[in-house]
């Protein structure tokens, strides 16, 4: 389950119309969400609030052996007034990352769209997000600075300060350039002076030019963006049903003189695809001879399946992982009926996200499970009880013998 701060941060991406899926780093997001979910450890409580549209706080108290906790604050220059902050109102899909349905590409805004003139002066600002988190007993500080430099670029600087780290901490600068059709990222980490470049290219026709949303105020939120997307999809009838993307990344650490490289392919269906959505990826690490292929299917709105096969051509090691994500719907017969009726009447209730927004309480919980060939089993159940969001999970090693339970934990979240 995502923390509240991640939730707010994602909302910021959406509000600033940044496509997180259009990046090489998220090429395999779907299979990672289903297969690599992390299970909580120990007992942990989160209390968070979005005290103002621009400001969020979160406190965490946990105990794994000893009590620890963290304080975090977030400031967003972009107000998020429509963000559902109450834990009873948050859509679980936003907190439980699962199968990620790729949306149609959206042509980035023209820079001049962002200009706001007032009495002959430009008064528009670049949206920014500041986030800090202090882990208490360990005295570790995390900080994040996120800024939309332009409609196509975003800068993300994250730092960790910890006395136990070499040099007392690290800084990672991440510059992303998203031109819809292609996306490039530049990474620099002060740790061993690591440089990285990532690129992703989307094959297929150029995205249709978007209509400037003049009427949309700068605080436009997810729904408006989605509406815009829906509008564009509606405008172009002959659009592809899937998207093929290819990308690569290369890293080189100046100080330790070591690097890494990988390339990847992805084919994913788009919302206009009539069958069930699916995503296939293939990544290759030519240096290490690692080959990884995934196949994920959204078999129904409530069920997603994913499998991954890793093979190393040098060591002949292979690994197979299978995972599933199962949603449970709350009983809300009335609303469902209405939706059905609305559909019958030809009204547009097409896209699921908007539907979810309409009834954020539609889902009662999500169950995730994964198993690999070595007997590792991961279980996670996340859901909502009254006002509380909970997440409990366990890691089990089926071949572990006596100590099969490798980890078990419960997380409880409350936000307002």
């Amino acid at each position, binding site marked *: 389950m995502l923390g509240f701060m991640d939730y707010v941060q994602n909302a910021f991406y959406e509000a600033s119309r940044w496509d997180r899926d259009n990046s090489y*780093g998220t090429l395999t997001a779907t299979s990672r969400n289903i297969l690599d979910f992390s299970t909580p450890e120990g007992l942990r409580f989160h209390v968070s609030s979005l005290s103002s549209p621009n400001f969020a706080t979160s406190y965490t108290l946990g105990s794994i052996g000893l009590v620890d906790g963290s304080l975090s604050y977030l400031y967003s220059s972009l107000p998020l007034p429509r963000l559902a902050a109450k834990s009873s109102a948050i859509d679980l899909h936003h907190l439980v990352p699962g199968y990620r349905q790729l949306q149609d590409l959206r042509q980035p805004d023209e820079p001049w769209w962002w200009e706001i003139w007032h009495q002959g002066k430009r008064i528009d600002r670049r949206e920014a997000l500041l986030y800090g988190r202090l882990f208490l007993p360990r005295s570790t500080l995390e900080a994040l600075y996120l800024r939309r430099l332009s409609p196509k670029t975003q800068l993300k600087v994250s*730092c960790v300060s910890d006395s136990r780290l070499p040099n007392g901490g*690290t800084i990672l600068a991440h510059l992303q350039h998203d031109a819809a059709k292609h996306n490039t990222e530049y990474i620099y980490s002060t740790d*061993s002076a690591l440089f990285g470049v990532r690129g992703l290219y989307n094959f297929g026709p150029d995205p249709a030019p978007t209509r400037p949303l003049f009427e949309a105020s700068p605080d436009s939120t997810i729904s408006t963006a989605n509406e815009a997307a829906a509008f564009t999809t509606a405008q172009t009838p002959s659009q592809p049903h899937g998207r093929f993307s290819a990308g690569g990344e290369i890293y080189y*650490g100046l100080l330790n003189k*070591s690097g*890494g490289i*990988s*390339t990847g392919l992805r084919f994913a269906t788009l919302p206009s695809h009539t069958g069930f959505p699916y995503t296939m990826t293939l990544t290759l690490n030519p240096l290490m001879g*690692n080959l990884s292929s995934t196949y994920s299917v959204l078999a129904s709105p409530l069920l997603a399946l994913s499998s991954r096969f890793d093979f190393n051509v040098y060591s002949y090691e292979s690994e197979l992982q299978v995972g599933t994500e199962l949603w449970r719907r709350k009983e809300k017969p009335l609303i469902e009926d209405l939706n059905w009726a609305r559909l019958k009447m030809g009204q547009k209730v097409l896209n699921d996200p908007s539907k979810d927004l309409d009834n954020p309480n539609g889902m009662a919980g999500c169950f995730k499970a994964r198993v690999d060939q070595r007997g590792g089993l991961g279980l996670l159940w996340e859901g909502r009880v009254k006002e509380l969001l909970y997440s409990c999970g366990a890691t089990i090693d089926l071949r572990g013998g006596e100590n099969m339970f490798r980890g078990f934990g419960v997380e409880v979240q409350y936000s307002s």
Partner: protein
Amino acid sequence: MAFNFNWSPLTADASFYTRAQELLTTALNKSPKPPIIVDDILVNELNLGSVPPDLEILEIGDLAEDRFRGIFKMCYTGDAYLTLKTRVQANPLNTYLSTKPSFTSPQPLAASSGLTIPLQITLSEIKLSAFIILVFSRQKGLTLVFRNDPLESLKVSSTFDAIPFVRDYLQKEIEGQLRTLLMDEVPVIIHRLSLRLWVPEYREREDEELARNLQDSTTAEKPMDPLASPPQDPVDSCGNILDASQIASLSLDSGPEMHALFSQKNLLRLSALTDSHRTLSLFTPGIRDVVFRAWAGPTERGEMHGSSGRATPMTPVMARSQSYTGNASTTYVFSEAGDTGHHPSRPGLSSFGSAASGLGLGSNKHGKPHGGRKRKHRVVNLRKKATDGDDVESVSGESTTASGTMSSAPSESGARPVTPERCDGELVTPPRTPENTAAQKEPGDGTPLRFRNFTPRQPQRAEVSENTPRQPQYKVPSPHSLTQSGSRTAKRPSLRPPDSLQTTRYPVEKGPKPEASSSSTATLQQLSPSPIDESSSGGMVPQPWLTKMAGEIARKVQDQKAANSGFWDRNDEAQEEPPPAYRS
């Protein structure tokens, strides 16, 4: 000083390698591994090779039957090798990221995917050169500390030798790991093993000590463990330690005053009794109205000496010889050239078995005659198993001799009043020294020496007694020893004093052990008679002359010491005068 180092017996012991492999495996896996190593490290092969390390004795700080402290210089350029098996992560990005916080991780998609490779590493051409501080005490086992980084160079050959980058990396990592292993883990392993070797006695002893401590809680000074703080600071050692050593020596050697109190007959019997403990002989002379407790602490030995000093000089000799026979299995024989000439003979430790390390130095007693430059032979037991039992016995036996039976405690107390009489004691004792020298000289050749080398105890006594009158200035800090300390000036730089304190207490509460021990000692008794004869013959040497000589030497040493107080200084060694350590 030189000694012969017998390396092959280590390799002959079949179980040694398997055990060493196990220990190494656990030790290697205990410390946090570098992230590049993704699997347990298995010690696949271990061979100590045929070339022994060069050991050089730099300093012997303390030498007694149940304790030893010394500094050695070790150089090793042998053909030992070690083969390790493990699995390593070949992707540098993976290992790099695994150590970094995820918050600032660039989160590569697949560039960090792992490639684990089975790796076989052979460590060979190991070059070590280190100063080793070795501290042994029967109660606390063996402690070995490297004073500097012992690893000089090392050749790491692995599966990746073809790739220079990986090779260099491995070389670096492994050297670092090995350094920590040598500096931190090896001493622990050795200590634990040494404790394990002495388990039966050790445990009992510990229990007794616990009980004793509880009862003796009133005593101001708690016995300190000489091993716990091996003297790493030479500076400290000079002043305080000397005093302490005095105490120790006093308590241990408390003998001379006592002889007057016993008849020769009884003394003979007592000696036979103690000998029987040392040996495996089942025969124990009956002494009426006496409860005999074996395994008493060093104090008891003092009693014995006292008795021997007067009536039967032979007893100590016997004791030693027997202990050595016990060591017959011991592998190392050290022969010391006469250079160290002036060491007052001190009934040093008979044997340490430091089986664990294979480095274990058992320093047996070195008897050094006063004036003579004689060869010293030390038998060191490197072997673990078979020998261990023997060693233990021998050691314990000696200690018992030193520390008298139950009677010892009373006797000591009695001794205090006696102290003024010491002059007599001195006079009596001196005759033995010549004997010892003679005895020691004979042993010049290899193995036969074992039995003989250690005779020198008595000379110490003589010295001690002589010295004492002249050097009253050393005062013994601890109340216990004070009574005796006044009389004995002999300084022993060692940390002993605490022990002595402990030992003094032993007699009081020690009960049950002795019998068991006595029964165990069987075979060696036969040997005892012959040494007795020798010693007795030695008695012929004119006492006054000896006393004089001893006094002279003692004074010289004193002056020397005053001049250069650094007790660990090698200057002492270089000069002919015995380093303070050797003066009992």
